[in-house]
């Protein structure tokens, strides 16, 4: 599975892994929506993500818009994935 989650009092962390291609993204979107809590911050741990599709990029942008700056971020992407966010002009979504 490409997703495991953990939750604290004010933060939900999604540990994502592998290739987040179009099909995987379509499967993950409802699950991510389900665990999104507008009262908590949301973190995508990208340290094990190898590929990201347009669909997943869109999910990230959706979460960013839903929760607002400072309440959603992507943590520890590999350099290849960090570059994707840089080219897309979405580097503000990436933290550390």
């Amino acid at each position, binding site marked *: 599975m490409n997703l495991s989650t953990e939750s604290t009092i004010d933060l939900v962390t999604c540990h994502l892994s592998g290739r987040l*291609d*179009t099909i995987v993204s379509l499967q993950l979107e409802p699950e991510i929506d389900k665990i999104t809590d507008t009262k908590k911050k949301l973190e995508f741990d990208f340290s094990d993500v190898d*590929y*990201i*599709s*347009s*669909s997943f*990029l*869109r999910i990230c942008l959706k979460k960013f818009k839903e929760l607002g700056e400072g309440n959603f971020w992507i943590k520890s992407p590999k350099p*290849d*994935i960090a*570059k*994707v*966010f*840089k*080219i*897309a*002009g*979405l580097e503000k979504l990436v933290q550390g």
Partner: protein
Amino acid sequence: MEEKQQQQIEEILERATFAAAIFNQYDQAQTDRIVRAVYKAGLNNRVKLAKMAAEETQMGNWQDKVKKNVVATQYVYENLKNQKTVGIISEDVQTGIIEIAQPIGPILAVIPVTNPTSTIMFKILIALKSRNPIIISPHRKAAKCSIEAARICYEAALSADAPEDCIQWSTHKSREETQYLMQHPKLALILATGGTGLVHEAYSSGTPALGVGAGNVPVYIERSADIPFAVEQLIHSKTFDNGTICASEQALVVEKEIAAKVKEEMKNQGAWFLNPEEIKMVEKVAWCAGTKSMSPEIVGQSVKKIAALAGINIPEGICLLVAPLEKIGEDEPLSSEILAPILAYYEADDFDDAIRKCIDLNYHGGIGHTASIFSYDEEKIRKFSIMMNAGRIVVNMPSSQGAVGFMYNTLEPSLTLGCGTSGKNITTDNVSARHLLNIQRITRRRMNERMVNMGFDIYYDESIDADTLESEFNKNY
């Protein structure tokens, strides 16, 4: 421009930027799978798209448009398929230079009415091969077939797991909207094929552009040429798709000594030599005095239709109208580029006079594009070529097909022919995928031997002049 239109353009560019970001992760094999899927879909739809284009634009004929679609898909694919365009593309141990190909980003493709579906498929293939998203801006008179071509390619690309929005198309945009799109900071490059005004706008936008210039192709049948062959090739080329290709011959120059033979051969092969009165009548329908350019009414039309419009009677079976002229320039409208089966004709006293006439024609609106010669005299071929200001000088071949490449020579197949700085373009190349890449060079330490041996102290002595420094630098080298 209204806010809504502006918002639409912003969205197009945002989607294209995301597609560029995703594309950046693709390796060569994934990229090649996408290109293969798109080429196959284009080739499979060659007839449907050709018929749609002919029907919608009312220019040319569907059979020749099928050929153009084949060039734009199969031949372009065959040229691209083994090219390295992703990551490390070359490694030279001796020079210590490693080249890395990087995509450039979103490309805006401006599409002409004369070759809509073929130009679209060509530009999509070269964009995808270089991992760049592309936005198609169709000509308003060819919107339907253009969008269908883009849609077919996009579906095929997605089926091969291409990034979403790697191909987008816009409906007709006002001049203001097009300018806004062209100047957008997220746009990496404009691939502009179309009229001079539009290409100029692309170059003026501040976004890097690869444009093409107008053609006014002179063809010289030199006295050593195989006349029946030359005439056959010329007529085949000039009448192809009713003359819509910008590399098609616009004016024929022959030496007086062989003129009678050339004329006879041309008549035998379906050419009609217009008399002075008929020239004036054709001029009226073929030339727009206000814009000082060809009339859009006759672009890509058949001889029969042009004759009817002009009110001249010609026999059945004629495929080309030939206008014997004396002068070249604004006073002689038919000496300009006319994308229709109308050919200017000049007789020259000798080789030098022929070259002078070809230079005049070449510089009369066709600078940097293409020139053509039929000859077996190597010295004259070279002299002619050096005198021309043309990105391509085609020898003993039809210039429409010759300039496009692949079929009659080893030029890269392309539907975007650079015309060099004289044509206000940045290149004289046949534009292809390699022009849509940023090439990075890793350079390893290789000390310059002469520089090391010479040292630098000598340069501090003001009395030592350049000649001495040159000889010292090259000593024992």
